[in-house]
């Protein structure tokens, strides 16, 4: 990247900057999925999100569902939202709306049982969404800087090169972003098992170190409790095929994505960081759930490395795919945005880190990522307890 890190974004009432200005149509419960899908068919320009959550759970999982759905609405890339509920669910449109009062965003609700069924609900949502899209189209842009950005870090389908090329290059980009006042979230606690050594060296305070130990220790204990002697199976078959042998080996490569800045804070899944700079979020290693936690925290973009190749994207939040090897970049050109495999051919990690930062700026300026072009937007929330 050369020159200043400046983009034109949309400032939300809470002060945060969006790099997209989406109208979100969000099902509050799985039962509203059909209506949301119909609205997406009629209005391709909205971001329609359906999921398997919203009812049938209790206790902490329910709180996480509400927090994550509300966080998605509050994500700065979302300009306005239509919440689509069924009417008898736990996470109702009214309940979700009540958590959003402070966001200052336009929030509309449609409840299927109240408006007379699916077709009428889809008509009503469509009309509201058309109006909101018009309003969003007229909103002025404002200048945004690196300090306004929060990026989520993710790796999916890792191979042995991930820790040698794509992840350390992302780490360099993160170092630069943090130097300029920005924020990055290192997530995937499962992929910190065996990598506490390097993470503790970055811990800014005793409190951060203690929390890192507790979160990673808990995840490791859970893996052992549930998987027993198969605990190493938290590696996916593709990881092992590519030459990764142990979870520690995968983790040590994985955490290089965070770079070398001090870890300022350790937060729970879906929580918003209170500090800028490098923060750690406690999430599963499972990509799609981890992405939801970081989007709910307010990440406007995701830097996502892959060795095996994954098309996964996320609603309203651009996902930038970085390949760890050039063969993958050539084999899946429609899914990968940038090739860090060039490091194996002699490019320096610093050079590719700058390229990643440059691409992040272009995406912040509006350039679509491959996952956005492909309409790859999957949404799932991390859950721990049983369904009822």
């Amino acid at each position, binding site marked *: 990247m050369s020159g200043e890190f400046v983009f034109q974004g949309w400032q939300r009432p809470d002060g945060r900057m969006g790099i997209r200005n989406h109208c979100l149509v969000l099902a509050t419960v799985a039962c509203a999925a059909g209506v949301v899908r119909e609205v997406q068919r009629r209005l391709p320009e909205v971001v329609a999100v359906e999921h398997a959550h919203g009812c049938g759970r209790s206790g902490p999982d329910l709180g996480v569902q509400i927090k994550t759905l509300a966080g998605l609405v509050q994500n700065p890339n979302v300009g306005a939202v239509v919440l689509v509920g069924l009417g008898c669910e736990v996470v109702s449109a009214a309940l979700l709306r009540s958590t959003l009062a402070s966001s200052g965003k336009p929030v509309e609700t449609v409840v299927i049982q109240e408006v007379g069924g699916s077709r009428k609900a889809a008509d009503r949502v469509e009309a509201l969404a058309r109006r909101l899209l018009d309003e969003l189209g007229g909103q002025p842009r404002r200048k945004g800087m690196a300090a306004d950005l929060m990026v989520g870090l993710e790796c999916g389908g890792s191979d042995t*090169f991930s820790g040698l090329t794509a992840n350390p290059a992302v780490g360099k980009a993160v170092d630069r972003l943090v130097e300029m006042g920005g924020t990055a979230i290192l997530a995937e606690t499962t992929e910190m098992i065996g990598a506490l*050594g390097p993470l503790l060296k970055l811990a800014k305070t005793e409190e951060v170190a203690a929390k890192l130990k507790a979160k990673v220790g808990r995840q490791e204990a859970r893996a052992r409790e549930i998987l027993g002697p198969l605990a*190493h199976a938290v590696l996916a078959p593709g990881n092992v095929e590519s*030459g990764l*042998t142990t979870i*520690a*080996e995968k983790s040590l490569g994985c955490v*290089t994505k965070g770079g070398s800045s001090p870890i300022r804070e350790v937060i729970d899944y879906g929580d918003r960081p209170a500090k800028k700079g490098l923060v750690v979020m406690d999430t599963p290693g499972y990509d799609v759930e981890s992405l939801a936690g970081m989007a709910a925290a307010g990440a406007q973009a995701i830097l996502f490395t892959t060795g095996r190749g994954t098309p996964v994207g996320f609603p309203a939040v651009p996902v930038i795919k970085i390949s760890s*090897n050039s063969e993958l970049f050539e084999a899946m050109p429609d899914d990968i945005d940038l090739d860090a495999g060039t490091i194996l051919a002699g490019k320096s990690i610093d050079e590719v880190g700058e390229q990643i930062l440059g691409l992040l700026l272009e995406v912040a300026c509006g350039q679509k990522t491959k996952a956005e072009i492909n309409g790859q937007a999957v949404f799932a929330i991390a859950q721990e307890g049983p369904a009822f």
Partner: protein
Amino acid sequence: MAVTAIRVHGADNVAVVAADVQPGDVVRLDDGRQLRAVDVIPRGSKVALDPIAGGQPVVRYGERIGEATKDIAAGEYVHSHNLA
């Protein structure tokens, strides 16, 4: 044939081969050190740089990634069959 292997940290006793390796191939590290491969080693997999006795730590990124489940000779393929 000579194949490059990538070692990240000076304390590492394994390195990742950048191309498929056949027994007898020369494996070359970026510091100029060379060793001869004993096994077929698929691209992206690990080669032992030093002899590693069973029970001893296998080190990559300067950190322990597991331990040898049997004696490993320099130049051997290191994966699930001898590392856990």
